[in-house]
């Protein structure tokens, strides 16, 4: 316990990672369940967000400075897939 | 002349900042390179950005930002509470119509950002002539109050800034 208290990062970060992974699983359930296509897209969007946070925490956990770009790209581009899908649902074609 | 060689100074500045942040370095080389890129990229992508952006009143911007931070934090707490204790839901979710006076696309875009990053509020639809905005709110107690809040807290400053 003292070890845990003296080095909270050693357990807190894995716990955070686990929470985020569970969050992703929850979004997956929504994705599987649907019921509408927009629900699934929303779930994917959310999954990407969770994934991005997971990457950030993972980076801290492993004290790595090179994971950041991945998170940055997720942040920048997670909307692209969602937008394309939403546009497809809305207009039947992605690029008009 | 400025239009041709420096089409978007604000954007250039932002890009310059982005460069320095990304490289977390303030060496001479990076400053030169960042400035160069900040100047060149808007120039190259100029064709795809036809809308000029004019921004005034930095003070208003600051005020608006603070307001947004405050509102966002509050609504975050609301939503968290709502999610944690679903039983204590007080009001149903609903759409809210808000008449708009703001017409500038950039201003509307900032409004959209504010609305969207505020949990519990989602941008649903804007009328074609931009005179009416429809939001979806997680909890609607009084639609008129919400509309008034949006107009006063966000739309007005935005109109000041962009128009």
């Amino acid at each position, binding site marked *: 316990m003292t070890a845990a208290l003296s080095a909270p990062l050693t357990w807190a970060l894995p716990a955070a990672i686990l929470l985020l992974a569970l969050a992703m699983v929850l979004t997956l359930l929504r994705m599987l369940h649907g019921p509408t296509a927009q629900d699934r897209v929303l779930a994917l969007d959310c999954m990407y967000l969770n994934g991005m946070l997971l990457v950030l925490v993972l980076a801290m956990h*492993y*004290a*790595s400075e*090179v994971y950041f770009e991945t998170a940055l790209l997720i942040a920048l581009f997670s909307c692209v897939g969602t937008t394309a899908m939403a546009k497809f649902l809305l207009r039947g074609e992605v690029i008009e | 002349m400025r239009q041709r060689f420096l089409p978007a100074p604000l954007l250039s500045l932002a890009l310059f900042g982005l460069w320095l942040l990304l490289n977390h370095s303030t060496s001479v080389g990076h400053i030169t390179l960042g400035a160069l890129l900040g100047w060149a990229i808007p120039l190259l992508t100029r064709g795809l950005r036809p809308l000029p952006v004019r921004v005034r009143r930095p003070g208003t911007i600051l005020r608006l930002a603070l307001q947004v931070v405050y509102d966002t934090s509050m609504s975050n707490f609301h939503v968290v509470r709502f999610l944690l204790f679903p039983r204590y839901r007080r009001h149903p979710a609903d759409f809210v119509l808000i008449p708009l006076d703001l017409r500038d696309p950039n201003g509307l875009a900032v409004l959209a950002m504010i609305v969207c990053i505020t949990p519990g509020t989602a941008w649903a639809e804007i009328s074609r002539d931009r005179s009416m905005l429809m939001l979806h709110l997680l909890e609607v107690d009084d639609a008129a109050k919400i509309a008034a809040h949006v107009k006063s807290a966000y739309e007005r400053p935005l109109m000041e800034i962009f128009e």
Partner: protein
Amino acid sequence: METVLALAIGVLAGSGVWLLLRPRTFQLIIGLCLLSYAVNLFIFSMGRKGLAIAKEPVLHLGVPENLSNYADPLPQALVLTAIVIGFAMTALFLVVLLASRGMAGTDHVDGIKAQDAQEML
């Protein structure tokens, strides 16, 4: 960890293979994508000293350059190439699939009408 990854590869490959055996072109392309994930992970798992955590092959000053400090860079380079080629091939297959669909009027892999084929399953 290895078990999880191996199982993951297995599931991806199995799903991909199942889809490869389906009659619709769209199933085929999804199957190929899944298969390529599986293959990429498979190649990736072939690194020296197995899987490595927090040992990115990005050199740090003062850290001895050997495989106990860095992940094996070679499989990573291979996977990179494989990803790119896989992407290109997916794109190509998609377009061929569309063309086939346009010419044959059906999305069966053999270009036959659904009604004629008992195998639209």
